[in-house]
């Protein structure tokens, strides 16, 4: 079964949601910054919000069709939804939460289904506990089990795992994949974390300002971003205006001079002639940093510079290095300590040709 959705909805006076996409069985990431319209897409699919126009269908099952006046009530849609805050019923045990959607079944059948799904999601030992008594990961598993016990034809996940560490995240997703292997329903997973996209998705839809910006595998969408907004979402921090100086078709590369300085970078060849203006994107984590001038190194770009500032944010040390242009560089705390880095220090930046991407400035 494949989800096909065309949704148009006016969210604010100057913000229009206008998307057209499909989601095959398996996990499709709906990826975008906050305010891009991701959650509204889910709410339209679940029936909490009526789009102004469009059509939503899972296979032959039409959930919404503005043209024919079809708009199924959420309870008739056979759609599972895991809310960002999970929305577990706090006054019901884990078992009662999972039971809740099975009201039409006899008690015995409910017990069997509840036991089966609880086993699949490894919470069978928690059935008589209150949601307030179990861990965050266990609550996520309970919310998934509650949504899936009714055998929905579509599962919607609204940033359900953003509060968990990576290991718990991927364990839960593994269990979800295992459960879905036999059923093959589309799972639409909303996130703004590009790390989750790499780790979890088979297919990515990038949403920006209420429209689909790009679509494809995580590698296609995040490793070769075509546009600057998409590149920002995909975790590129450095953007430079530059002019093409020379093109080397045999090496598949070209040299570009950054605007406002005489720094040149060798970048992958793009469809551009010498003299053309381009925009170059570089991930802060893809830049190597040396405290003495590197010798005999394969990377084509070595720039001398000086550390302007450095600060630690979680497990990342963020440095700004003035090397003609200002580069943002991310290091691990261990690397930063072993190089004994400090603001004002002289350093060399090492950037591989293929760490540089040519992006277009407009979507």
């Amino acid at each position: 079964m494949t989800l096909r959705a065309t949704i148009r909805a006016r969210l604010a006076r100057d913000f229009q949601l206008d998307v057209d996409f499909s989601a095959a069985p398996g996990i499709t990431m709906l990826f975008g910054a906050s305010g891009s319209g991701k959650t509204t897409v889910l709410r339209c699919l679940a029936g909490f919000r009526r789009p102004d126009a469009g059509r939503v269908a899972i296979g032959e099952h039409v959930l919404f069709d503005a043209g024919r006046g079809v708009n199924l009530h959420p309870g008739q849609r056979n759609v599972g939804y895991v809310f960002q805050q999970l929305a577990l019923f706090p006054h019901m045990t884990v078992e009662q939460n999972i039971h809740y959607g099975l009201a039409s079944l006899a008690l015995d059948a409910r017990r069997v289904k509840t036991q089966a799904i609880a086993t699949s999601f490894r919470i069978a030992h928690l059935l008589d506990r209150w949601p307030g008594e179990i861990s965050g990961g266990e609550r996520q598993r309970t919310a998934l089990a509650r949504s899936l016990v009714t055998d929905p034809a579509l599962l919607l996940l609204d940033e359900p795992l953003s509060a968990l560490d990576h290991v718990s995240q991927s364990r839960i997703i593994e269990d979800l994949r295992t459960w879905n292997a036999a059923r093959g329903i589309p799972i639409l997973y909303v996130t703004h974390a590009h790390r989750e996209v790499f780790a979890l998705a088979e297919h990515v839809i990038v949403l920006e300002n209420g429209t689909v910006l790009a679509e494809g595998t995580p590698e296609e969408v995040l490793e070769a971003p075509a546009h600057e907004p998409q590149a920002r979402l995909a975790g590129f921090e450095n953007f430079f205006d530059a002019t093409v100086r020379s093109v080397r078709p045999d090496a598949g590369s070209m040299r570009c001079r950054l605007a406002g300085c005489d720094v040149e970078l060798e970048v992958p060849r793009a469809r551009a002639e010498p003299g053309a203006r381009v925009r170059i994107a570089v991930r802060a984590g893809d830049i190597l940093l040396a405290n003495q001038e590197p010798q005999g190194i394969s990377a084509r770009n070595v720039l001398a510079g000086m550390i302007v500032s450095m600060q630690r944010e979680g497990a990342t040390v963020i440095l700004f290095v003035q090397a003609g242009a200002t580069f943002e560089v991310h290091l691990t705390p261990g690397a930063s300590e072993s190089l004994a880095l400090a603001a004002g220090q002289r350093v060399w930046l090492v950037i591989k040709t293929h760490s540089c991407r040519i992006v277009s400035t407009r979507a």
Partner: protein
Amino acid sequence: MDWQAIGLTVRLAVIVCVTLLVIGLPIAYWLAFSRWRWKFLVEAVVALPLVLPPTVLGFYVLMAIGLRSPIGRAWERWTGHGLAFTFEGLVLASLLYSLPFMVQPIASAFSQVDASLVEASSLLGSSRWRTFVRIIIPLSIEGVITGIVLSFAHTLGEFGVVLMVGGNLPGVTRTVSIAIYDQVQGFQYGAANATALLLLLFSFAVLSAVYALTRKPWSVTRIS
């Protein structure tokens, strides 16, 4: 001690409380979830008895149920006697007087129920009624109990409205607070003291029972 007045007052309070619960729940539901733009007018009307002097409310009720009003005449045709200075008239006046004490705590509790719980319930196939009974009521139970207790206690102790609408007829409209007033007026301080003490102890017992009963087992431990 005026046992007749005590029995009458408890009967009045129970009838008013149960009736208010029946009409208060839908009103509170509507107030909590309606998005009608003129909703504030209804809110103001419901809250009016909170700020009106009891004599003003009592005066209007007396006018409304008197034999010159359509309501009073209809009642007389139906039952053969008027509403003013009867127990039924007292019930009607008390319903109006205590309405906000039932509706406001419940409406406030309803509107604090997380909207995503209601959405989750409807997505899991529940009707509005089932969501109301299984999700909204249990999560608002403290507000509901508060509404019941407040409106009961408020009816128990009302004075001005009773005097205006019911007068002071033993066994018909003489409530405890009027009995105490009478006793004090007649210099029967001993009897007044006994009646007042009984009311005090009763109120304390009810409130203690309510607070003991509304402890939620599921909110005692919470790991975030």
